[in-house]
């Protein structure tokens, strides 16, 4: 036993020495003028599953040589809630990194605590980047109490989703694309009962969806259901229309929408797993032909790696993008859209330590031609080649290409430089021929078509005040209980719900929202 103890002791001591490395000393003051400035950057990885940026990435050397910056990268967790917890915990210990990606809600909290720096003066130091990325909407996103506290880079392109319907199923049953809510219901019913895939089994549904993680803040039950909500004019959480400004839930049409959706559930024309699905389950389900109508994102639908499984299972299958159908009052909308941004904030510590110049330099370089291509696609000849139009493509570079497993790790920072420019879209969404059915598909064409439909303009919804957690729970719990039938959906119960909602704090939230809308000209 003595031997065991000695071994344990040795292991313990050696582990604490050996594993005590790996720490970043936080340099608080930029040292002598020719020593590089250390910048800690916490970034949101583009594709977290692919793995972090390798330690021998060429970018490190280039940044050190050209900008005199020693860049230290940390990848944030892939889950939004985990990101928020990690950043807020670091904030609570006053241990925030120099530059980090953050959601607007957390940013608001950090501003209140005085942990992030006012960056109004930084924009002048990066004119090129500001011109490319920071337009008026971006500035609104990062402005709190009249000052900018972060840099809001463009996120996913707006209006990139659409209402898709199985064309082959429509043709088989001799139906037309629905244009009204009644027709939509009829088509859903037909898809459920008339075996549109012809396999003799009663295993298909009309509509499929899932409840997203942030569904309540966008408008419960979430953007998968916006086309249906849009038919009643209640898509989105807030109504920015001057006549009905406020939460959409107060509109009488919202009740009609609930009745309609409940009817879909009761008659079984919607995939009953919609309440339990998470994003990946939903996507797997349409690839297996479970339902015939859905709202999906352009690349999630049409990109080669995503469409391929569906194509293999159903070579005869095809989807068509349809216009939103009209509700009883003639409203129609694919959904409520807002501009999407990713905010990068600077900690007060870094600002006080004088790292502001270095940070501005770094960001400006990222948006330069060199930085744009390096962060976005990698090294030319190694990770990408340019085709005849100058668009970066994978060519035959295999794994090292920016679409391959190794290439993806060196482009994890692309979120910091992409701005949905034409080069990017052409590169991300090339035209290709499907493997099994030989169709020509292009996520770019799909995107343009989706963007051309009718949408409700909800720009600015991302900056609206959020509710207290209890109010939020009451809102989503009550709506969910109506839909599952736990509470009967009657006018009387609905009125009770609204009254109780106001009591819990819903009215306060609504008033705050309307006031904010007026102040910021969102109506």
């Amino acid at each position, binding site marked *: 036993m003595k031997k065991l103890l000695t071994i344990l002791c040795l292991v313990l001591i050696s582990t604490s020495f050996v594993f005590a490395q790996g720490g970043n000393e936080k340099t608080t003051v930029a040292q002598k003028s020719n020593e590089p400035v250390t910048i800690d950057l916490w970034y949101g990885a583009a594709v977290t599953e692919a793995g972090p940026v390798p330690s021998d990435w060429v970018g490190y050397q280039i940044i050190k040589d050209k900008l005199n910056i020693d860049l230290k990268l940390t990848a944030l967790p892939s889950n939004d*809630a985990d990101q*928020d*917890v990690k950043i*807020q915990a670091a*904030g*609570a*210990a*006053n241990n925030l990194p120099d530059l980090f990606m953050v959601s607007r*809600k*957390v940013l608001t*909290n*950090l501003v*209140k*605590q*005085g*942990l992030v720096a006012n960056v109004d003066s930084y924009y002048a130091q990066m004119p090129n980047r500001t011109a490319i990325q920071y337009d008026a909407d971006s500035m609104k996103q990062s402005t709190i109490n009249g000052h900018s506290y972060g840099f809001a880079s463009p996120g996913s392109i707006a209006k990139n989703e659409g209402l898709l319907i199985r064309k082959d199923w429509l043709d088989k049953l001799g139906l037309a694309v629905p244009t009204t809510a009644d027709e939509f219901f009829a088509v859903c019913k037909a898809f459920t009962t008339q075996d549109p895939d012809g396999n003799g089994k009663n*295993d298909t*549904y009309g509509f499929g969806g899932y*409840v997203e993680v942030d569904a*309540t803040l966008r408008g*419960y039950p979430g953007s998968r259901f916006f086309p249906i909500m849009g038919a009643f004019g209640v898509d989105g959480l807030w109504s920015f229309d001057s006549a009905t400004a406020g939460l959409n839930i107060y509109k009488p049409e919202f009740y009609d929408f609930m009745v309609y959706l409940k009817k879909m559930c009761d008659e079984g024309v919607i*995939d*009953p*797993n919609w*309440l*339990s699905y*998470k994003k990946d*389950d939903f996507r797997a389900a349409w690839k297996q032909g*479970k339902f015939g109508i859905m709202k999906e994102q352009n690349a999630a639908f049409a990109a080669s790696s995503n469409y391929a499984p569906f194509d293999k299972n159903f070579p005869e299958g095809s989807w068509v993008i349809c216009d939103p159908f009209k509700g009883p009052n003639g409203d129609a909308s694919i959904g409520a859209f807002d501009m999407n941004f990713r905010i990068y904030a600077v900690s*007060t510590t870094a600002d006080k330590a004088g790292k502001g110049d270095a940070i501005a330099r770094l960001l400006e370089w990222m948006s330069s031609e060199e930085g744009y291509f390096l962060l976005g696609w990698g090294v030319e000849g190694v990770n990408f080649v340019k085709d005849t139009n100058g668009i970066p493509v994978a060519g035959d570079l295999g794994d090292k290409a920016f679409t391959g497993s190794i290439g993806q790790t060196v482009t994890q920072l692309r979120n910091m430089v992409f701005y949905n420019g034409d080069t990017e879209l052409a590169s991300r969404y090339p035209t290709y021929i499907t493997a099994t059915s030989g169709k020509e598909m292009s996520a770019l064409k799909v995107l343009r078509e989706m963007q051309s439909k009718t949408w409700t303009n909800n720009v600015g919804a991302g900056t609206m005040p959020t509710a*207290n*957690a*209890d109010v*939020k*729970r*009451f809102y*989503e*719990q009550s*709506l*969910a*209980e109506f*839909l*599952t039938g*736990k509470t009967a959906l009657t006018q009387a119960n609905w009125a009770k719900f609204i009254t109780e909602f106001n009591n*819990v704090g819903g009215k306060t939230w609504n008033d705050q929202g309307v006031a904010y809308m007026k102040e910021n000209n969102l109506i």
Partner: protein
Amino acid sequence: MKENLAIQNNKSSRLWKEIVRHKSVYLLLAIPFTYYIIFKYIPIWNAQIAFKEYWAVQGVNKSPWIGLTNFKTFISSYYFWPLIRNTIMYSVGKLIISLPLSIILSIAIYECTRPGLRKTVQTLAYLPHFLSWVIMYGILLALLSPGDGIVNDVIKYFGGKPIDFLSNTKAFPWVVLFSDAWKEMGWSAIIFIAALMGIDVSLFEAATVEGANSWQRIKYITLPAIRPVIVTVLLLKLGTILNAGFNQIFMLYSPQVYSVADIIDTWVYRQGLLEFEFGLATAVGLFKGVIGMALIMISNKLVSKMSEGSSLF
């Protein structure tokens, strides 16, 4: 008077003698005790933020006091009583279902007469413990989803109507309790098996001599032998009765079952952690601690009255 002093002196000198006699024990204790002070009691000192309005820039010591405001926020929450009710329902439910099952499993493994069956079950039983709740959600979905879950396929085959277990407020608590039992049964049994392995051979010899059958053997030898471990486990679990399994509920719940699924920890996660209300989060932690401590002390007193050697203190 002098006698009293003498007696007192004797007592304190006896105490001192005991301390000196045990000086090598205190030496052994030094390092773990220091660890405790650093890693457990400094955070408790930091937990004073429960009574403060926490400002990160000012730190723990300089943030302003606000007394019981954080506690009031918690207690006056619209959902306070449902949270408490759900938390206790799950904690007690798990004690009632999981604990007996793992004890029965450990005895069954101990008494099983077929080594092949025993080894298979022993190896398989603790495998579910390693499945995180993220993957458990997938398993439960495959089993219980209304559209194509295996259980619902069976129900439909017999002509019944499929049940959405994960969205049904009546079914959800059972899903939580049984999935937890399924996952932890084998793992919790390990400690009981270790206890069973330590039973003195002579006890069983005596039992055979007296002609005891299997049931009597369980009643008079096996169960009493592991009783101290059972009592200890029970006492410890009572102390954390207000922790009802955050990871499980967090992965499994959804708005339609909030009324029966939301527990204290998930509420604190949304209201405290995600909102930068760390004083509130810490206050709830202290609240749970006070109740847990009270429960431990009460049940410990009961236990020490009933039998020596099983109490925590």
